[in-house]
């Protein structure tokens, strides 16, 4: 704890030294990430100054502060833009905030400083109406182009019953369809050049290999991809908005459905952030159970990736083998949690239940079964010469490009960057485990697959360590904010009974504050950045998902390749549209 505190002071004095003429207003947050406010006129200068040290724009989001009550020590603001920078090299973070007022809700765009700011700024405009001046194409990204209003503003209705009944008549349908028509001119594309007239191919939103509802408009010269425009938002369900209506506890099942292949892996950053905000200590048994379940879901997600990756380059069979292995895995998950894909099983302060009798037998069986299967798949898929031909040197990006575009997770490790949140910023007791972080160096589609395949083996290693060293003790914390509180303690005295009653009927009250927790999710770094206003539900929940920036850089790595290569690239990125659109 004290070490981190020192770091805060260091960054404060360092920044004051770096920008002597700029007024910086420092804020303490529960996650101890150095956070400071600057005026909008200085934001470009500050970010430019910070970039040499913090090379990645990890997240950029808006906050509507107009109804927030607990703002002690914070500068006045109606809308706040939060820039979260990360340094992979130095393993540190910094958060910069800009206060805006309703009267002039403009802030300079930083898309020239950090390339991946482009989509994040579009999202902030879409959700809050924050106007990023000089942005090349500030248009809707998650909501339909015809949407009225900005959804994450506090005055925007949160449920359908607060709005007029929705009707889709033919006229409206035509209007909506027309709004989705792709006009190359909007994206600065030419319809033809001196030699050829380009074909614009609408790949998606429904296409066999875009893994969900994802649309890429391709500018084609024959089969060569000249340029591409990824379009997202078809899977947007307003997860961040829902968080503002659900209690802290009842939002947990929604997180399962963000990265729907990640299951309880999504619960983890959310409950960790709440626990940090409220200072809830988690018993070692609960931590180890969480790690084990999270690694199970990493394997499950990577198996789906492995199978679909092979399928997308035209190999029909592997996907069936991998899904039947995943089925075995789900049987264990079902025995432990009662659920399969979305168990929503983690709780604030622990997990929902203790492990069932005989869990260790099932887990051991699986651990003994899997390595032979992986060796088999290795021969079948990864060593197949056609698959290698199709994916080696395809979709290459370098380390600096990965940083520039906010690529994290296996996609980052495939370029040779040796960084894994589990090892380098351990959470939930990962520091107690012994595992390798697979790193490859070509940054192509094949290496991205390689990293994931090796990660399955490492996850098996971690699970075996959980199995052999499962601590005894409580499966949830005895802290009073644990939700739901331990039942044994509710029936004896009035105090605990009242706590229990209130937390069940109204919901747990989490102390006011801000906290962001990042974990190594199945697809990259996933962060839940929670703002509590001292209520029973979150004031603002920001979900930074790894897939969102990964899709943004598709045009960069697919230019000049063929359609078949683009499919291989899409397969190698391993995204889930629900994770992109939230």
């Amino acid at each position: 704890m004290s070490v981190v505190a020192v770091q805060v002071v260091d960054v404060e004095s360092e920044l004051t030294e770096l920008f002597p003429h700029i007024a910086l207003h420092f804020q303490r947050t529960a996650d101890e990430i150095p956070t400071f406010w600057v005026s909008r006129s200085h934001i470009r200068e500050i970010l430019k100054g910070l970039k040499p040290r913090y090379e990645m724009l990890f997240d950029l989001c808006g906050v509507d502060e107009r109804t927030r009550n607990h703002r002690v020590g914070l500068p006045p603001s109606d809308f706040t833009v939060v820039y979260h920078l990360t340094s992979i090299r130095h393993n540190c973070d910094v958060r910069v905030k800009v206060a805006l007022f309703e009267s002039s809700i403009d802030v300079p765009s930083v898309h020239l400083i950090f390339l991946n700011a482009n989509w994040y700024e579009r999202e902030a405009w879409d959700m809050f109406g924050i106007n990023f001046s000089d942005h090349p194409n500030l248009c809707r990204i998650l909501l339909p182009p015809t949407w009225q209003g900005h959804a994450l503003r506090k005055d925007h209705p949160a449920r359908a019953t607060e709005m007029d009944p929705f009707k889709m008549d033919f006229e409206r349908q035509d209007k909506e369809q027309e709004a989705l028509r792709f006009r190359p001119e909007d994206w600065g594309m030419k319809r033809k050049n001196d030699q050829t007239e380009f074909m614009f191919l609408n790949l998606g939103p429904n296409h066999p290999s875009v893994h969900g509802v994802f649309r890429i408009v391709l500018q084609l010269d024959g089969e060569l991809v000249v340029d591409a425009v990824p379009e997202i938002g078809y899977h947007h369900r307003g997860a961040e908005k829902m968080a503002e209506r659900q209690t802290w506890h009842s939002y947990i099942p929604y997180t399962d459905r963000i990265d729907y292949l990640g299951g309880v892996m999504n619960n983890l950053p959310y409950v960790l952030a709440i626990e940090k905000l409220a200072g809830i200590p988690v018993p070692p048994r609960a931590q180890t159970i969480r790690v084990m379940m999270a690694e199970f879901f990493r394997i499950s997600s990577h198996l789906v990736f492995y199978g679909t990756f092979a399928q997308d380059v035209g190999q029909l069979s592997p996907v069936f083998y991998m899904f039947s292995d995943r089925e075995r895995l789900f049987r264990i998950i079902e025995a432990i949690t009662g659920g399969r894909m979305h168990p929503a099983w983690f709780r604030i302060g622990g997990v929902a239940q203790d492990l069932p009798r005989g869990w260790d037998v099932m887990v051991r069986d699986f651990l003994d079964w899997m390595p032979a299967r992986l060796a088999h798949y290795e021969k079948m898929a990864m060593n197949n010469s056609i698959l290698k031909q199709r994916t080696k040197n395809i979709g290459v990006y370098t380390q600096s490009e990965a940083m520039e575009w906010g690529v994290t997770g296996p996609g980052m490790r495939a370029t040779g960057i040796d960084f894994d949140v589990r090892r380098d910023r351990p959470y939930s007791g990962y520091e107690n485990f012994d595992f390798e972080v697979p790193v490859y160096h070509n940054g192509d589609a094949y290496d991205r697959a390689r990293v994931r395949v090796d990660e399955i083996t490492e996850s098996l290693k971690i699970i075996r360590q959980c199995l052999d060293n499962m601590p005894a003790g409580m499966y949830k914390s005895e802290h009073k904010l644990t939700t739901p509180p331990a039942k044994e303690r509710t029936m004896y005295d009035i105090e605990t009974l009242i706590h229990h009653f209130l937390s069940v009927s109204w919901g747990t009250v989490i102390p006011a504050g801000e906290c962001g927790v990042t974990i190594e999710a199945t697809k990259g770094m996933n962060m839940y950045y929670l703002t509590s206003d001292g209520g029973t539900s979150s004031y603002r929940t920001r979900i930074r998902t790894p897939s969102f920036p990964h899709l943004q850089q598709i045009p960069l790595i697919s230019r000049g390749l063929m359609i078949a290569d683009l499919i291989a690239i899409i397969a190698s990125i391993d995204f889930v549209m629900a994770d992109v659109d939230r």
Partner: protein
Amino acid sequence: MSDLVLYLLVFGTLGGAFAGAAILVWFERRLLGIWQDRLGPNRVGPLGIGLALADIIKLFAKEDWVPPFADRFVFIFAPTAIVMAMLLGFTVVPYTSELHIADLNIALLFFLGMTSLAVYSVLLGGLASNNKYALLGGLRSAAQMVSYEVFMGLSLMGVVMLSGSFSLVDIVNAQAERGWFVISQFFGFVVFLIAGIAESHRLPFDLPEAEHELVAGFHTEYSGMKFGMFMLGEYLGLILISSMITTLFFGGWLGPGFLPPIFWFFFKTFILICFFILLRAGIPRPRYDQLMSFGWKVMLPLTLINLLVTGAVELWL
């Protein structure tokens, strides 16, 4: 051969080919199911064989629809072309030395001609659909089939040299004397096999439809029985290619005498069909340009060298 036998043979071939194609759909799915650790269709009738019938009823019962933006005449004509071409190809297949519809003295050329005609079907279907995916599929198929056609024909010239005839009956009879051509013409066999898969555009050479890239390729806009014709054409092609490989390289009806010759012909063809299905289960799809360069840089030289060596051996030994 009397007229009656001939008529019976014609209708038998026609019915047999259609029924074979329908059953093959079911059979392929069952076989893939076994290989892929799953059950496959097993509910309708014993072992799920009723599925073949259900599929046919489904295809016939679907609305016969032509997209308003398509070129109507060509759109309807395209799927019929492939079925016609494939069925005509069957006329020269000799089941036994006696049992064949036509023993043309140019049977081999006739067969090659008919399979080449099938490319029009795919090409026109892709073009007439007026759909970008279909267009790309049609383009791919034109390039693929035209180039694989070249060495498909050339790969058979070794067989022709060895048997001294274009007649398929003579070719099988030649194998009775000189042994199955799969041994003496091994490279010719390999090239013909690969080109044959490419001709019937099945995985790994299914680039014209390439589900993962082009949705359904050239038949994206087709539905109902018109789609059914394409599928029928594909399976007929599979049977035809298998029976041609049997005839040309595996001694056709030749086999140990304890079973009738016709059994050996169908047995060999059946094994080859299973092999084609296994390929589909096992191999990924190469990229379009990789396929082309493989064709022109590996297959063509191989064919030419095979031809040269065969010619030299025939001439001087």
